[in-house]
């Protein structure tokens, strides 16, 4: 009797160990639940890394307007959030280089354009996740970008039109929110370094609570027009834990208009 009990306990323990080993995280964290029994992702979150500068590993580098801005607006180094190097097709790599060279003219962030996905998730500004059984909403400070993730199968239709933030279907896989997104325009970048994609971009994101105040955020990027194979990025996301955290309106169009329309002003006009 006792032997069988011991054997059952051993089996259970090793199963638990096996699960922990597979996930590579130690014992899995179980997040508090929403009223409909799902891991609770509600809150304000923010990435802390240099992915918004360059998702690949990079050294520190000078910025622009060095005489005026100096070190304050130079580029910090980072270990990268991509597994390995980005597997660009040769012509797509040439385009990336061209993007970087002309980034002051071409980076959509400068124009206050919607940042797209996954860039919105690791821009250095907070975003708020709001969760109910039908939708997981993400509200980003920058440009007031909004992501709607449709959780109800009845709403999981094909994207009726392409968009900057894509069309997202969500489902739960245990502790993980899986977000499948298509219907992207090709107009967004992955970062300020000119890393880019086409309109057949397909992302699968996995958001897994790893502690009370952190999430593990993983993205698989699939774009056969630009890359030779799918590739993956991952990073933690950190909860904003100050008292009464709240997004502040960041309506940046006015800050970008001189960059977008300045060349069309009447000569001699401010």
């Amino acid at each position, binding site marked *: 009797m006792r032997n069988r009990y011991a054997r059952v306990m051993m089996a259970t323990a090793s199963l638990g160990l096996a699960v922990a080993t597979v996930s590579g995280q130690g014992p899995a964290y179980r997040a508090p639940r929403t009223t409909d029994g799902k891991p609770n992702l509600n809150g304000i979150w923010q990435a802390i890394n240099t992915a918004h500068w360059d998702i690949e590993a990079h050294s520190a580098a000078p910025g622009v307007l060095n005489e005026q801005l100096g070190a304050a607006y130079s580029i910090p180094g980072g270990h990268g959030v991509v597994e390995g190097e980005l597997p660009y097709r040769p012509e797509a790599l040439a385009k990336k280089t061209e993007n970087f060279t002309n980034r002051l003219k071409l980076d959509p962030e400068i124009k206050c354009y919607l940042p797209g996905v996954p860039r919105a998730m690791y821009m250095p500004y907070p975003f708020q996740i709001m969760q109910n059984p039908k939708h997981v909403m993400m509200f980003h400070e920058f440009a007031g970008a909004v992501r709607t993730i449709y959780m109800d199968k009845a709403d999981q239709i094909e994207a*009726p039109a392409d968009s900057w933030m894509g069309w997202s279907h969500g489902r739960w896989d245990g502790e993980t929110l899986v977000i499948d997104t298509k219907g992207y325009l090709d107009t967004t970048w992955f970062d300020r370094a000119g890393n880019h994609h086409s309109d057949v971009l397909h992302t699968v994101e996995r958001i897994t609570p790893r502690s009370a105040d952190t999430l593990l955020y993983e993205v698989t990027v699939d774009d056969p027009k630009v890359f030779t194979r799918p590739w993956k990025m991952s990073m933690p996301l950190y909860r904003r834990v100050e008292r009464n955290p709240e997004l502040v309106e960041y309506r940046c169009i006015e800050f970008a208009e001189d960059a977008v329309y300045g060349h069309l002003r009447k000569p001699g006009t401010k």
Partner: protein
Amino acid sequence: MARRFLVSLGVLAALIAVSPLGIVPAAAQAPAAAAKPNGTPARAYVVPKTPDGQPDLSGFWTNSTYIPLQRPNGVTKEFYTPEEMDKLEQAAKAREDEQTVPGTQQDVHYDDGQFGLARSQGKFARNLRTGLIVDPPDGRIPPQTEEGKKRNAAIAAARKVGTPPPGFTLRDLTGGDLDSHRGIKIDTRCIMMAAVPPPLMSPGYLPNYQIIQSPGYVTILVERLHDARIIPLDGRPFPSENVRSWVGVSRGRWEGNTLVVETRNSNGRVQAAERGLMAGQPISGGSPDMTITERFTRVSPDRIDYRFTVDDPKTWTKPFTAEVPFERMDPQGPFFEHACHEGNYSISIMLNNARLAERKAAEAIKKGSN
């Protein structure tokens, strides 16, 4: 018994909403269940709850209406008869259906009906009010204070009316100029639009709102400009007066089944209707320190009664209150991404054409003097 009441009420409401003549067959009339003149159902409604226990306001709603904010000049009564309202709605629909004259600006740009955006092409809540203002009882915005008059006179004087480029009229520019993007209206620049900031009065088109509820929050997502007004319900204080925004900062609380939302911390630019004028904003001239209080009550499966009070002692001698009913949208979404600024070709086209016209005029002068 109760079920039949609800069914006949639904039929009544459906007939009023759909029938252009507002004729209600006698068989469907139940005097005890007749809606109020503003369309609020007479029968009390048991509001379902969200999973976290809030009265359920969630879903896609429209506040489309033909009713102006203020009671029109010459109208003294508070409500039209159903027949009078039908005539007004039919006249409005006829104007929208009118074939625009080919080659005119109206024809090229403003034929909303071509895109299914005309009011008559969508749902709207039945309401016999002559104007949206319910208080003061005369249905008009109260007089301005001396301070308000002074401030607004100074703003009007400072508003620069530029010299239009050759071939353009001031009317084309609707009050601004084309020296740079700064002379163009704020809504044309996609910075802010009517019906986005509170109070939520119906714009000419795209009067679509999604209410999203989650624990401790109500969020109003406006399809226009994909604007998300996130309203915490935890009683936290307003931020410092140095943190201001175009739509202000909102704080909400439930009073029974009514969501009460107070908004402050406006940056005052919408109210000032500055050089970048914004179309369709009937409440202009207010100060940045105005407080707007909104009340949302679900009164039926298909209707939210919405009231707002504008309190701005620096501008108006007393507060005023208006009501704008919200009707459930059908179908229930989805919303499309309104990437307004991203797709805004109009600014570049207008400025480019202005520069071209100036160059052509300069060349003509040069040729003439040769």
